[in-house]
C-alpha cells in the first residue's frame, strides 16, 4: 500500500495553506501573538495563488475588508487572537446579519484584557454564544491537532458558503504553534449553491442589496426568524464529535480542542490501569452535540468536563445532561495549560468508587 504523503508544519501554517487550497483568495489581518504565522505565511503565499493579502491598520479594518470581499463573492478570511477578536465582534454581527460567508480564525490566548500569549480556551462563550450584538450564531469548529487545523479550515469555507454565514475556527496557542506531521488531504469542492447574491456589477440584471438595516415594520423580526431557521437546520445537520471508549465507560470526560488532546493521554493511561473511562470531544461547538451527550446521560454515566478556562462549555454539557447525571468540572483559567499527569489525577479522583453506581 502506498504510504500517505505527510507534511510537517506549524498548525497556523497548515491552516493558512488549507485556506489557499480551499480557494480562499482574500485575507486581511493584523499582527497579534500567537497567530502571526498566519498573516506571515499568507503574505508570501497569497500573491503566488493570485489572491489578495492585506495587512490592515487594525483588526476592525481587517474584518471590514473581509466583509467587502465576501460581498464581492470571494472566499475571504481573517485571523486574530483574544483582544483582536473582541475588536472584530461588531462586524461578525454584521456578517451574520447580512448573511455573508466568512472564515474567522481565533488562535486563543489567555485573557481577559491583554492577558498573556499562552494557549487558552476562555473565548468559548464569545465564539459560541454570539459575542457581538443581536440574535446570531456562528458555526464554531474546534481543532485539536494540526490535521484538523487543515481539514476543518477547508470545511469552514464550505459551510460558510453553504449557509451564508461567518464560521469561526476556535484554535489556541498550542495547536497554532506546534508542529506535527499531518496528511494534506486534497480539497474536494462539494456541490454548493451558486452565489446569486453577490455584488459584482448589475449590468444586464436587477440590482441586488446586501444589508443589515431592516427598519420597516416587522421587517427585522422576519429576517431574524429566517436566521433562526437556518440555525435550527445547522443544529440538525452539522454536529461533529469524536468519542473514545465511551461504550462501557463509568466516567466520561468531555473536552474540546487542546484540552481534549491532553485529556486523551490521561484517559488512555487510566484505561491501561483498568479504569473504565471514555472521552467525548465536541468538534463543532456550535452546533453543540447536545443530543449525543443527552444519550450518554440516559445510560447513567458520570461526566467530568475539563477546560482551559473557569468553566464555559460545562454549562452546555449541563444543559444537555439536564440533571440526568453528575457533571463535574475541572478547569484552569488564565492561559494555564494542563499536563497529562494532572488530568490523570483529576479524572481518577472523579471516577466512581463502586462501579455502576455513578449518576
Amino acid at each position, binding site marked *: 500500500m502506498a504510504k500517505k504523503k505527510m507534511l510537517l508544519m506549524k498548525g497556523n501554517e497548515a491552516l493558512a495553506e488549507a485556506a489557499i487550497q480551499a480557494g480562499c483568495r482574500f485575507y486581511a489581518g493584523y499582527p497579534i501573538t500567537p497567530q*502571526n504565522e498566519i498573516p*506571515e505565511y499568507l503574505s508570501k503565499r497569497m500573491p503566488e495563488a493570485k489572491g489578495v493579502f492585506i*495587512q490592515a*491598520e487594525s483588526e476592525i479594518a481587517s474584518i471590514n475588508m473581509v466583509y467587502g470581499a465576501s460581498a464581492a463573492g470571494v472566499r475571504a478570511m481573517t485571523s486574530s487572537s483574544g*483582544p483582536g477578536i473582541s475588536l472584530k465582534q461588531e462586524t461578525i454581527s454584521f456578517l451574520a446579519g447580512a448573511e455573508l460567508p466568512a472564515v474567522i480564525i481565533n488562535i486563543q490566548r489567555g485573557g481577559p*484584557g*491583554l492577558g498573556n500569549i499562552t494557549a487558552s480556551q476562555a473565548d468559548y462563550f464569545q465564539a459560541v454564544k454570539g459575542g457581538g450584538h443581536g440574535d446570531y450564531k456562528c458555526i464554531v469548529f474546534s481543532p485539536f491537532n494540526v490535521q484538523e487545523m487543515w481539514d476543518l479550515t477547508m470545511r469552514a469555507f464550505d459551510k460558510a458558503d453553504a449557509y451564508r454565514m461567518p464560521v469561526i475556527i476556535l484554535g489556541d496557542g498550542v495547536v497554532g504553534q506546534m508542529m506535527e506531521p499531518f496528511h494534506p488531504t486534497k480539497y474536494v469542492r462539494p456541490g454548493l449553491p451558486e452565489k446569486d447574491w453577490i455584488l459584482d456589477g448589475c449590468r444586464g440584471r436587477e440590482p441586488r442589496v446586501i444589508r443589515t438595516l431592516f427598519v420597516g415594520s416587522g421587517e427585522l423580526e422576519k429576517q431574524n426568524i429566517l436566521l433562526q431557521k437556518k440555525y435550527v437546520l445547522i443544529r440538525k445537520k452539522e454536529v461533529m464529535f469524536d468519542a473514545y471508549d465511551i461504550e462501557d465507560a463509568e466516567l466520561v470526560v468531555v473536552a474540546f480542542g487542546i484540552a481534549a488532546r491532553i485529556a486523551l493521554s490521561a484517559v488512555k493511561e487510566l484505561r491501561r490501569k483498568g479504569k473504565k473511562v471514555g472521552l467525548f470531544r465536541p468538534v463543532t461547538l456550535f452546533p453543540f452535540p447536545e443530543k449525543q451527550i443527552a444519550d450518554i446521560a440516559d445510560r447513567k454515566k458520570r461526566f467530568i468536563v475539563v477546560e482551559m478556562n473557569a468553566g464555559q462549555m460545562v454549562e452546555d454539557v449541563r444543559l444537555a445532561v439536564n440533571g440526568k447525571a453528575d457533571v463535574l468540572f475541572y478547569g484552569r483559567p488564565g492561559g494555564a495549560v494542563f499536563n497529562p499527569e494532572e488530568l490523570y489525577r483529576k479524572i481518577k479522583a472523579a471516577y466512581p468508587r463502586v462501579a455502576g453506581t455513578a449518576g
Partner: protein
Amino acid sequence: MATGLTLKELSKKEDRFTHGHRMCAGCGAPTIVKMVLLATDYPVIAANATGCLEVSSCISEYTAWKIPWIHTAFENAAATISGVETMYRSLKKQGKIDKDVKFIAFGGDGGTYDIGLQSLSGAMERGHDMLYVCYDNGAYMNTGIQRSSATPLGADTTTCPAGDIIPGKLRVRKNLTKIMAAHNIPYAAQASPSHWMDLMKKVRKAHEFIGPKFMNILSPCNRGWRSQTNDAITLSRLGVNSCYWPLYEIEDGVTKITYTPKDKIPVADFMKPQGRFKHLFAPANEWLLKKVQEEVDKEWEKLKKQAECGC
C-alpha cells in the same frame, strides 16, 4: 528651578525608568523613555500603548516605572491619558489637588500610526494637556516584525517580505509628525536619541505649552532592522545626517529645523548596516534604492521650504 541639561546635572537626577526591564539589548526605546523622563522636572503620569515597551517594562509583579503608569488596549493610549488628564483637571478645579502634573503617553509606531491613530487624533483635537511620544522603530517589532505605516519604503518585513514578487515595502511612510501638526496643536517635533540635547530640549519646550503636544522619536530596533546591538545611536545619527529623519519642530504652525547636517550623507549610508534593506543593494533593485533617495530628498526640500517661509 529646572535642572540644567548637562550630563553632570542629569547624572544626579533619579531615573524614573529604571534598569531591570526586559527590553532587548541595544533597543532604542528605553533610552528614549529615560531621556524624556529625565528632561521632565514635573511629577509625571504616563500611559502606555501595547507594544515592546509596555510588555517588557511590566513583567508580572515588577515594574521599571517609578511613576504612576497605566496601560490599556493597543489602540487607546491617547484616550486613556485623556481620561486621566481630564479627571486631574476636574480635581484641580474642585481644589482637591494642587500639584502641577504632566501627562505623557508612550506608544510605538504600530500603536500610534495605525491602530491608535483615531484615539490620538481625538485627543489632539479635544485639546488635552498632554505630550504623546511615539518611539518609531518602523514595524510591529513586538509581534515579529510585521510592516506598519511607519515602515520605510523598500524595507523587508515578515508581512511585506522581499523576494521575487515584491522588493519589500512598496509604499512610503506616513508622515505622522505633519499629520499631528495639521491638528493645529501648539507643538509637534521630531527627535532622535543620537541628538540627546536636542531631544531633551524639545521635551522641556513641549511641557511649557498648555494643550496637546506630539513628539516622534526615531527608535532603532536591532531585531527588526537586522543590525548590530551596539548600533542604535550610530544608526539614529546616520538617520539624521542623511535627512531620512530630520530634526525639526512645528511651534504654533511655524516650522523650524533644529539641526541641519553639515554634510548630508546618502541615505544608503543609513541603510547599508541594516539587514532589512540588504536586498536593495542587489543590482536588480538599484531603481528602488534610487527612489528611496529621491523620496528623502523631496521631503527634505519640502521641509526646508516650509522652514524658510515660516509656515
